[in-house]
């Protein structure tokens, strides 16, 4: 594990980090503490329910560790500030919810285009628009993937517990810095604000990825060197004197209108995630081996769905649960075996049909895919899901 050095002093920051042990903690706060352990030293954000605990916690904790917290004038400033800080070589994050996430989309496109590693925690609430700020939603799944214009790839995690708010926030930083992409922790109000058990392992058991810095002399450095899938990243002030633009750019970082340059750049931006989808993508499969019906559910909904699976099993129905842990890349391969056996699929999510489209894209020509829409503002109860299971199980 690399040393975690305070920005201000050479003093190690360890003594200020959350100690290993078992805690009873809120999801949002677990995410903030995880970010600090992952090396986050800059937070920029704007108040929005139900993500505020992350900013409030960072405002108190970051200065103790020698980091900086700024509450900006809006979410647009916040996302652009963390991109600037990332190009200063400092791990940075923001946290928000639906309306703020919408405002950040242009900045997320910037981060994708200039390959700035940043982490965005989106604690989803009920939408559209202002919706119900205090209650749950899962309506940002598509926005996370397609929210900015143009072609690019991002990574989005789907925590379903306080433990995963912690674990996946650390993983989000690692993925961001390994692949030089914006990474989204796509939480929801229930998971973000619930309080439950958290186990923090010893620091030396936590993997932390650092920047892959260039080793060549400045005259040989190409900031967007297409000989690499993920070019080494110089940061400001190291003497590389490199140019970065959000215009379509060549290996030197210079703007270009050439179709060849555009092809090379955009292809690499998507390839670096697509070619690593099975390295990055994650899922959990429960009771899938003999399942005749597979429920696909994620985030808080997966916890209701798990209970429904258990009750269905008790009643003799062969039902399993497939829980994507990454929304993007979508871990479609995890469903392959069940589909090949002829298992049918029921997607349950707190929206009017988002991830179900992705499941259909992969498997609609092979098996029947059912959908249970659930309007935002509450979590479907296990009983609600079980009723739907019984409705479709007989086929």
């Amino acid at each position, binding site marked *: 594990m690399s040393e975690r050095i305070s920005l201000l002093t050479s003093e190690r920051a360890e003594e200020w980090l959350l100690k290993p042990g078992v805690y009873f903690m809120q999801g949002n706060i677990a995410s903030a503490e995880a970010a600090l352990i992952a090396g986050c030293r*800059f937070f920029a954000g704007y108040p929005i329910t139900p993500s505020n605990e992350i900013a409030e916690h960072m405002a108190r904790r970051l*200065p103790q560790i020698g980091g900086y917290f700024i509450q900006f004038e809006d979410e647009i400033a916040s996302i*652009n500030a963390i991109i*600037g800080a990332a190009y200063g070589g400092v791990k940075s994050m923001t946290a928000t919810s639906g309306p703020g996430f919408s405002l950040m989309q242009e*900045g997320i*496109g910037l981060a994708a285009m200039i390959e700035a590693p940043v982490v965005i925690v989106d604690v989803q609430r009920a939408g559209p628009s202002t919706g119900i700020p205090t209650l749950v939603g899962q309506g940002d799944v598509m926005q996370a993937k397609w929210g900015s214009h143009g072609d690019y790839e991002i990574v989005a995690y789907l925590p379903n517990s306080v433990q995963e708010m912690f674990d996946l926030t650390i993983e989000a930083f690692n993925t961001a810095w390994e692949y030089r992409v914006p990474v989204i922790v796509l939480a929801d109000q229930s998971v973000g604000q619930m309080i439950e058990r958290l186990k923090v392992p010893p620091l030396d058991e936590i993997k932390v990825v650092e920047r892959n810095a260039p080793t060549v002399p400045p005259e040989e450095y190409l900031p967007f060197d297409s000989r690499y899938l993920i070019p080494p990243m110089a940061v*400001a002030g190291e003497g590389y*004197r490199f140019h970065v*633009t959000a215009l379509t750019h060549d290996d030197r970082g210079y703007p270009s209108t050439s179709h060849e340059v555009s092809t090379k750049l955009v292809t690499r931006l998507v390839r670096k995630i697509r070619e690593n989808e099975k390295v990055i993508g994650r899922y959990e499969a429960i009771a899938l081996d003999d399942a005749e019906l597979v429920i696909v559910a994620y985030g808080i909904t997966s916890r209701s769905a798990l209970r429904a699976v258990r009750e269905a099993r008790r009643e003799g129905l062969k039902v399993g649960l497939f829980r994507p842990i990454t929304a993007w890349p979508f871990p479609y391969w995890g469903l392959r075996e069940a589909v090949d056996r002829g298992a049918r699929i029921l997607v349950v999510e707190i929206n009017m049909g988002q991830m179900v489209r992705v499941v259909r894209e992969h498997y609609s020509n092979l098996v029947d895919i059912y959908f249970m829409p659930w309007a935002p503002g509450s979590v479907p109860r296990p009983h609600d899901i079980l009723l739907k299971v019984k409705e479709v199980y007989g086929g």
Partner: protein
Amino acid sequence: MSGRPRLGLRTESIKSLLRLERFPHIWCPGCGIGTVVKCYAEAVLESGIPIEKHVVVSGIGCTSRAPGYIKLDGFHVIHGRAIPFAVGLKTVRQDLEVTIIAGDGDLLSIGGNHFIHAIRRNDDINVILVNNFIYGMTGGQYGPTTTIGSITTTSPYGFIEGSFNVVYLAAALGANFVARWTPLHTKELTSAILEMFKVDGFALIEVVSPCLIYGEMNNLPPLEVMKVFRDRAVIDHDADLSKAYIDLRDPKKPIVLGNFVRRSRPSYQVLARELIKRARGG
């Protein structure tokens, strides 16, 4: 102001700060932006700050293309967001001298919210705002500094809105350094940039600039504008900024220039470092 830079002697070394492989540049003949780049480059060389510690940031527009021709760590980000990008960078890397070179539309219209809040926070960044009174790159639409009555592609019957008096706005918001110069006043501009580097806190220089696009529609070709600067410039460091708005088209209106404001309000970044010491109990 301390001794003026030795201008003219630096032409060769300025080349070391330019990305000559990218020339010719995109700017129109008669545009003032190239002169601003030259003055900035001279100031960087004169500053005594190591070259690799200078960073230049911009948004979108003609002026924002400047970092693309300057051989420093340079960031040409999205429209209106140069300030928050620069604030994030400067906050975590206070060893850097971060300067924004961008236009009136970028900094005051789409980026206006960031402009007022960065001055309120007193972020320790330098802003060179090139004001050409129009959106040049997109073909000549009116902007937040367009003067009333001007013809633009989106005000074909004459502009009827009010416009920002940039230096008055920045001074009122509490900027630590506020100046205004033109591309005709290169020595003064370079000196002002040098002074800006030394300021802790928000520093703004408005460079009132000729623009071919604006000139074509308003009978003010760039050479005429340079004559306006020569004939109507009044250097008054103590000017009443409330009366110092610019109207190139009004022959009776002086072009008030100077280094108007020098304050020593502590910057956000200095206060944030102190806050960290307090939080750590030190």
